[in-house]
């Protein structure tokens, strides 16, 4: 059976699918969050060196990981948008950017509040946090460019180019920041010196990361549905859809 890969590339057929997947992921995210928080606060033991403050790891690691991961996915959709000239791919990239930026912001915030009790300072210019800060700037750049360009299709393509240029640069930036950091290793802060992972701690982190993943998918799909309607409103299929929803 040959699958028509492009069946869902049209916004009209993707819209209902996005609704279904989004709802499923939202439920999964909620369940995983409950399970993860239970593991984080009830099951996981107190850390010997960091006391209770280490529990921040259960939201710091998921947000930091998602910030990076969402950028890669956004770059992937951008590559598809440029390669196949499909507007839905560009809409997906557009939908992911705000969530990625918020994840980066939360990663920086939680990292600062973890750093203070653990290593004495809110901001230590370590490689990973500095790279996450630059990642936040990259996200904000894509969002700002989207807002600055009036024509939707030109904005699609320009943001796609920018996202890809950023994606190519992220490893270079990370490498250069890490190098800079090791050269200036005055303090002995090291965010890799996380508490030795008890199995329950690791499990809690993984569950929360999965929760964050499902959450990101769900919220991005809600946003893409809004974007689809904003951009395609007035076309025949939206008319039919709105009529169907009105009578339903």
């Amino acid at each position, binding site marked *: 059976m040959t699958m028509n890969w492009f069946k869902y590339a049209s916004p009209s057929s993707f819209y209902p699918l996005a609704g279904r997947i989004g709802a499923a992921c939202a439920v999964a995210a909620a369940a995983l969050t409950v399970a993860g928080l239970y593991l984080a606060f009830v099951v996981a033991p107190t850390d010997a060196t960091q006391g209770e403050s280490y529990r921040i790891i259960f939201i710091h690691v998921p947000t930091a990981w998602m910030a990076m991961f969402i950028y890669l996915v956004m770059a992937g959709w951008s590559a598809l948008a440029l390669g196949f000239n499909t507007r839905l791919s560009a809409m997906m990239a557009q939908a992911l950017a705000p969530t990625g930026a918020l994840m980066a912001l939360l990663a920086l915030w939680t990292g600062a509040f973890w750093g203070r009790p653990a290593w004495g300072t809110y901001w230590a210019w370590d490689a990973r946090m500095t790279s996450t800060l630059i990642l936040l*700037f990259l996200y*904000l*750049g894509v969002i*700002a460019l989207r807002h*600055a360009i009036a024509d939707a*299709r*030109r904005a699609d393509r*320009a943001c796609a180019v920018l996202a890809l240029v950023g994606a190519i640069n992220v490893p270079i930036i990370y490498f250069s920041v890490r190098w800079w950091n090791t050269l200036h290793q005055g303090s002995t802060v090291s965010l890799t010196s996380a508490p030795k992972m008890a199995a329950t701690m690791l499990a809690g982190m993984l569950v929360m990361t999965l929760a964050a993943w499902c959450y990101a998918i769900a919220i991005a799909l809600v946003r893409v549905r809004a974007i689809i309607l904003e951009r395609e409103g007035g076309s025949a299929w939206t008319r039919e859809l709105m009529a169907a929803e009105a009578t339903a």
Partner: protein
Amino acid sequence: MIPDAAAPPFPAPAASGAGAGFAWALRRDLRIGVRTKGELGVQVLFYVLVATLFPLATAPERTLLAALGPGVLWVAALLASLLSLPRLFASDFADGTLEQLALSPYPLAALISGKITAHWVTTGLPVALLAPLLGLQYALDDPARYTLAAALLLGTPVLSLLGAVGAALTLGLRGGGGSLLALLVLPLYVPVLIFGAGAVEAVRGGLSAAPHLSLLAACLLVAAVGAPFGAAAAVRIALE
């Protein structure tokens, strides 16, 4: 603003190689740059001014200045590059020349490479040559100042190359020449800044700057190959 009516006319379509296109764009933009000397002088003055501000803001104490010097001189170079970037495409875009360039038989990436090179010759090169002089203000010794010049010579072309992509993406946007361009391009500048300022720091600390300079050279090679194509794609997007 008088359009550059005296710019060399388009050559006959017989020549369509990348090299010919590069040379043509380089010559044209250099000629235009020389005719608008005022603009160039302003950018160099901006660089000197910014470099002068920092000691005023802190203290003219030699060890402090020597520690600040590499970073300040590099960041000022980044800002000066940002200031001059809109100039790269703006006037050609406004009078329709850019569209003609895109339609010409020359590969657009080659033409853009020529424009970027001309831009660097008129902005990055003067900054790189001037920096060692300003290094005296920051109590940097000779090896540090020569390393600074070498690092800037390698790094400023990368700034022009990466900046061209940003300038092309923000072509014709309201306020796009200013803060938006800076927001897009400054994160991409970070590796150049780190390697470039790091080179001078290394020499100050008695180590060799060779690893930093080789990394800068690598950045330059990658940017020289990739950025013109990225900028060409962005220009075509802006021209639609």
